[in-house]
């Protein structure tokens, strides 16, 4: 009998291994299972029709479950720094103005506005019928309170601080008229005001909750905050009083059709997409490239894809660390990395390669940079040799006894396959004789932003205006250890151009300024642009009229659940 027992003994081992292997691809569709978790069955959608809605033929009600790839950091718009948070924040909060996909600015909470002749102040006329979710009326005081709140160091504002630059103060002219004063004229200011991270929160709630506003967000948006279960889900419900949607972005300016949106937090990509395929969740964001083709062929599903704007995913080379302060050495590095094959290999043709510090579609994008700086291993080798970095017996280059090493830091979890980019760069640079040490860490905030302990770090930023470059390339920006910008770059010419671009009123001249900046940054090999991130959503075909704003953030005002 003992032999039998041995086999039986081994079975749990086998089972465990298969369990581990299968854990990732769990949640496969089990036939005939109803979507109880989603709670969005057609019956529910019909029965809970709301009488207050104006358009009679759009199906009302229902709950949309929408899977997010990571957890938002904050729901207080002024303190958040994550794109994923904006997807939720946008449903709860409104902005003064809206930016259409063509870049033009349209009314939202402000009905009209006027810039002073010197460009240093804007006077806004506000809507008079707007109320926050807690009943607080929206008025000029509220606008002043919000923008002052961002400037107030006690708020610990994040990205909103650079978005609102150069805002200085506000004057309440009457109940519904407010004048915003700027330190310098800014052509980016109006566009930036349209962004969700500088949207308007209820002053009453902000006073009441303080730091805890992030857990109890109160705005004036189409949906009201209901609950946030950490690492599980965030629920928002319909705001029945909503009547001030931006007609430049959405068709339905009244209360939304959906009763609720449940933002589920599902970091595991196979699980997220599997749940959409099985119908447990109606929509899921960030579809892995390898799944896009097969999902597009699925008769029950649809794929939405919208390229983001702002700064593409870019590798920043830290010039403050030796030997990377040498422009020629960085140019050699630039020529040694085959970005084209990285993008092709990892994203299977679903992402576009980036060529500039800006993404296509952002104002001033310089298309002439495309295909300009090509991968050229021979050129790279020649440059390294010329600079005196010669290959040793181990295949690694060295100069004066110092080996040519490069510390590449990236964050965990492996968002958008960024860790895999590090692995490929490591192999490519090994071929030209650079030893790349890859560190993948969950604690990248400390390593990068507090210690500045990296030669290469990759980052991207979704933004509406090329003014976003300031935070990364202006020598006055000191995001790293309060002493340098991300690439450790200080170029007086770029500084002057960035300052000029901010105040320039003529759009054509502005474009020209930003083109010059892009050319200089690429010429100086400050960065290696990698890819433009397309925001992708896989959704059941019952999800109708999902729209995206100019920054590829989803808009749920028009969404209804069909059959």
């Amino acid at each position, binding site marked *: 009998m003992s032999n039998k027992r041995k086999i039986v003994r081994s079975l749990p*081992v086998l089972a465990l291994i298969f369990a581990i292997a299968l854990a990732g691809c769990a949640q496969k569709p089990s036939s005939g299972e109803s979507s109880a978790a989603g709670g969005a069955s057609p019956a529910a959608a019909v029965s809970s029709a709301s009488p207050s809605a104006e358009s009679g033929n759009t199906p009302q009600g229902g709950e949309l479950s929408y899977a997010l790839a990571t957890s938002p950091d904050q729901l207080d718009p002024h303190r958040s720094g994550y794109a994923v948070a904006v997807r939720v924040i946008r449903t709860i909060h409104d902005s003064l103005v809206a930016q259409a996909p063509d870049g033009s600015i349209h009314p939202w909470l402000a009905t009209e506005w006027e810039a002073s002749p010197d460009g240093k102040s804007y006077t806004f006329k506000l809507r008079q019928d707007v109320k926050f979710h807690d009943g607080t009326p929206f008025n000029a005081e509220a606008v002043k309170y919000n923008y002052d709140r961002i400037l107030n160091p006690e708020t610990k504002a994040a990205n909103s601080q650079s978005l609102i630059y150069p805002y200085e103060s506000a004057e309440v002219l009457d109940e519904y008229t407010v004048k915003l004063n700027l330190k310098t004229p800014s052509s980016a200011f109006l566009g930036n005001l349209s962004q969700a991270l500088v949207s308007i929160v209820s002053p009453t709630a902000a006073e009441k909750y303080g730091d805890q506003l992030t857990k109890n967000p109160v705005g004036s948006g189409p949906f009201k905050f209901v609950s946030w279960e950490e690492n599980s889900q965030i629920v928002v419900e319909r705001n029945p009083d909503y009547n001030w949607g931006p007609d430049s972005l959405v068709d339905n300016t009244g209360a939304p059709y959906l009763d609720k949106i449940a933002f589920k937090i599902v970091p595991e990509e196979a699980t997220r997409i599997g749940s959409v395929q099985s119908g447990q969740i109606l929509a899921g964001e960030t579809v892995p490239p390898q799944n896009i083709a*097969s999902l597009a062929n699925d008769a029950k599903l649809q794929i939405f894809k919208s390229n983001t704007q702002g700064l593409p995913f870019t590798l920043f080379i830290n010039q403050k660390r030796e030997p990377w302060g040498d422009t020629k050495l960085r140019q050699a590095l630039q020529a040694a990395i085959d970005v084209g094959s990285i993008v092709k290999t990892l994203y299977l043709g679903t992402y576009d390669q980036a060529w500039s510090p800006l993404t296509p579609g952002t104002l001033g994008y310089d298309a002439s940079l495309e295909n300009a700086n090509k991968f050229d291993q021979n050129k790279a080798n020649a440059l390294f040799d010329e600079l005196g970095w010669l290959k040793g017996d181990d295949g690694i280059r060295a100069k004066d006894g110092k080996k040519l090493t490069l510390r590449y830091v990236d964050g965990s979890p492996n968002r958008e396959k960024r860790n*895999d980019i590090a*692995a490929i760069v490591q192999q490519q640079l090994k071929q030209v004789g650079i030893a790349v040490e*890859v560190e993948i860490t969950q604690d990248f905030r400390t390593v990068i932003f507090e210690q500045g302990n990296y030669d290469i770090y990759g980052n991207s930023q979704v933004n509406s205006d090329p003014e976003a470059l300031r935070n990364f390339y202006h020598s006055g920006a000191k995001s790293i250890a309060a002493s340098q910008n991300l690439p450790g770059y200080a170029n007086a010419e770029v500084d002057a151009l960035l300052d000029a671009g901010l105040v320039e009123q003529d759009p054509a001249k502005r474009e020209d300024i930003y083109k010059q900046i892009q050319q200089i940054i690429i010429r100086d090999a400050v960065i290696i642009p990698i890819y433009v991130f397309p925001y992708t959503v896989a959704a059941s075909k019952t999800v109708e009229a999902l729209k995206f704003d100019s920054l590829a953030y989803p808009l749920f005002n028009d969404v209804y659940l069909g059959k």
Partner: protein
Amino acid sequence: MEDTVAVKSPAWRESRAASERVRIRSGIRFSALLVYGAGLVIFFIVLCALFPGQIAPYSPTLMNVDAIIQSPSLAHPFGTDYYGRDVFSVVVHGTRDSLLIGIASVLVGGLIGAAIGAIAGFLGGVIDTIIMGLIEVMMTIPGILFALAVAAAMGPSLFNIVLAVALSAVPGYARVFRSQIISIKGRPFIAAARSVGAGRVRIFARHVLPNAWAPLLVMATIGLGTSILVGSGLSFLGLGVIKEIPDWGTLLSQGRGYLTVAWWMSTFPGLAITLLVLSVNLLGDKLRDRLDPKKNRI
């Protein structure tokens, strides 16, 4: 049931006994076959760990952009992954780390566990109570959870992974070794040694230790399988080391996002882990049967 058996004829009983004998005999053959198979698998895996360059057809770091996500073929028996690497070559080269984590953690865990067990068992008294109390506390935490906590707290490095897996196995080794020491301590030959004037250290080193190691050896062999599994599990969960040449657990984890489009990326590393652990366990069982005093003594 008892009744029906009783009324059956003796002839029937005999035939049943005969068939039982046949079953046992063929069973033994089957088990011997399994053991040889397991030995062969381990032999091959050790070869892979020692000479990966001679066995793998490609370099494990060669990323071929023109051959990404290809299904198994003659050129690539295990297919290629999303970097365009040959999965077979990567698995072969990943053997060394997977095996190293397993063996090193068993050695470290076994040595620490044996030392603790020996001290507790030989000295006895208050020291024994305190040490074993601590071990009991450690045992209340499940091994994998303990390893996870240690690995997460100390950060990813090969040494930390080994230590994490080793520490999670310490309580088991300590308990077995302690009880073994205690049972040997009570044997007459120890009393005899003491009566002829041997010191405590001499008794411990010359008489107790040499007679106590056998169960530990069996336990270590079987523990090897568990250690490889826990090590791979930690790598799978992203607590392992990110290196140019990934170990099997990391490979499993890298391929799981592609399971619906390219099953071979995680299936083959998974099979490698399965085969290795299964083989080690089979050999461990065999070794236990051989060393079991109750079975072999006349």
